[in-house]
């Protein structure tokens, strides 16, 4: 995988061969610029590799057209971003419900699941609040609920605790871990945060675009 930086072509990832198994709680770690985010983007179909392929379940997502890829992400991948990225004009409930609406789910199913997920992340009393009325930690928990709403095969989280204080980070990690254990949701996240790394059951370390270690704990 290469990208252009000014006039120079930079090889962001090379010879990556990585298989993530269902139910894993995997941390991608490495220094800044090592290629963690690029790897997550490629797994999530947000970027295309210049060479190679990505297979999720039985689908080679690198061969999908734009709309097919968007639909694939909608049904198979949940995203948690570093800066939450909730829709500012929607309430917590609407933000979580949003992806299910795009999936054309029944209203009853949507309401039930939204409340269940918001309860799971401890925000059942904040459902009518908009993002600007919530703290960073609360927004990130809504983002987790949103990521899970579409019943994805796995969740990609890019530095999910980077903007949170230690208490909120701890709280979020506990929720993610609980969801991983109880609902068998696969999590793949990039992080610098040692507390997050400690919670992971698999750690993939990247440096200069290459996997230098892949350990389970």
């Amino acid at each position, binding site marked *: 995988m290469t990208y252009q930086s000014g006039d120079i072509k930079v090889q962001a990832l090379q010879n990556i061969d990585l298989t993530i198994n269902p139910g894993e709680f995997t941390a991608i770690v490495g220094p800044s610029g090592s290629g963690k985010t690029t790897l997550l983007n490629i797994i999530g179909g947000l*970027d295309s590799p210049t060479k190679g392929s990505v297979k999720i379940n039985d689908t080679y997502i690198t061969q999908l057209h734009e709309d097919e890829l968007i*639909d694939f*992400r*909608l*049904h198979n*991948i949940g*995203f948690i971003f570093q800066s939450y990225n909730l829709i500012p004009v*929607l309430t917590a409930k609407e933000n979580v419900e949003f992806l299910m609406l795009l999936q054309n789910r029944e209203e009853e199913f949507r309401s039930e699941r939204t409340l269940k997920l918001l309860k799971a992340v401890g925000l059942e009393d904040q459902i009518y609040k908009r993002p600007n009325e919530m703290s960073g930690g609360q927004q990130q928990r809504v983002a987790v609920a949103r990521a899970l709403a579409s019943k994805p095969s796995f969740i990609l989280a890019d530095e999910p605790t980077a903007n949170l204080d230690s208490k909120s980070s701890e709280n979020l990690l506990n929720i993610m871990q609980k969801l991983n254990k109880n609902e068998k949701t696969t999590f793949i996240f990039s992080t610098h945060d040692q507390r997050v790394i400690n919670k992971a059951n698999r750690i993939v370390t990247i440096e200069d675009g290459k996997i230098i270690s892949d350990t389970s704990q």
Partner: protein
Amino acid sequence: MEFKLAWRNIFRNKRRSIITISSIIFAVIFSVTMRSLQNGAYDNMLKNIVGNYLGYIQIHYKGFWKEKTIDNSYYIKDLDSLNNDPTLAYINHRVEGFALASHEKESKPVVILGINQTAKSEQAQIKNSLIDGSFLYNESNGILIGKGLQKIMNITIGDSLIFLSQGFQGSIASGIYPVVGIVDLKTPDLNKRSVIMSLNNAQDFFGIYHMASSAIIGPKNEKWEKTEKSISNQLDSSKFEVMNWQQMLPELKQLIDVDRAGGTFVLIILYSILTFSLFGTVLMLAEERNFEFGVLVAIGMRKSIITRISLYETLIMSVAGVILGLICVIPVVTYFHFFPINLSGQMQEVVEQFGFEAIIPTSLDPWISLTQAIIVFTITLVVNLYTLIKIKNIQPTKAMRA
């Protein structure tokens, strides 16, 4: 959900939305007012000169328009066949000739207009113009004169005017006629030189029995072009000339065309200002939302849905702007239609010199509001194309990195 998102996005940055809607409201108000004033002024000119006096179409003996002598008159029965034309509402034969009018020590050249005083359309027009005295009665040899002529010659109702002119084929025409009424023909020039008498009296005066100099054609509807075509096809072009008001008054047509072009130019400037002002808003909006669009695509929203949401936003704001603009402008236009702007001072003199009434009423033609609303609405939609292109080309990772 799409509509809800669009609706809430409008309230996200209230100040910007208000500015956008205000610029649309302003554009609608300005363009509709301007066009209504222009068209109202044209309509008034046409109504005064064409509607009340000249008619939209006239038929003459060939050559009459170039050489308006009484010798170029036609036999009325030669046009009887036109009475069966379904595109015609009426034909009014008139006699039009020049004479020297005298009253006491005053003499003045005038135009004598002989009208069929029993025809409803002539009655309606002239009776509406009557400001003093009475209308022309059958068998009476009374005459009506313009209010300008009355003032110049110091005439009161009941006074008589003596006319001297050249009649048919070189005969001498003369006669004395009592003034029974004063008319305001709404055009200063016409008011200063017009004398109206019955068709029979005019035929007697000029010695053109059973003849007339012009036939005023009333079209069945506003599309006089169709009537003109139908008449032209029926008449012998070597004997008759069929003329529309644009041919009879080319200066008026030219004046309207030039003025309309000027108005169009001003409107183009207005539309350009609106386009750039809206484009600025759209540009800011698209740049600001770029990140958000990237997130939406990343989490699984198709670009077509984002496009629709963006379109709804634009539609809501432009529809609101256009409707509010129309709500503001319609009462104003209606008011100035019934209470026209009266020109005064130099402006009044200039306008009257051209023979027009010095007032500017607005036009109530709904087509003006509709056209301007559609144009402003279309500009808003076209400007929004930028956002649509931006959405189409969005790449989530790039957008989220920005």
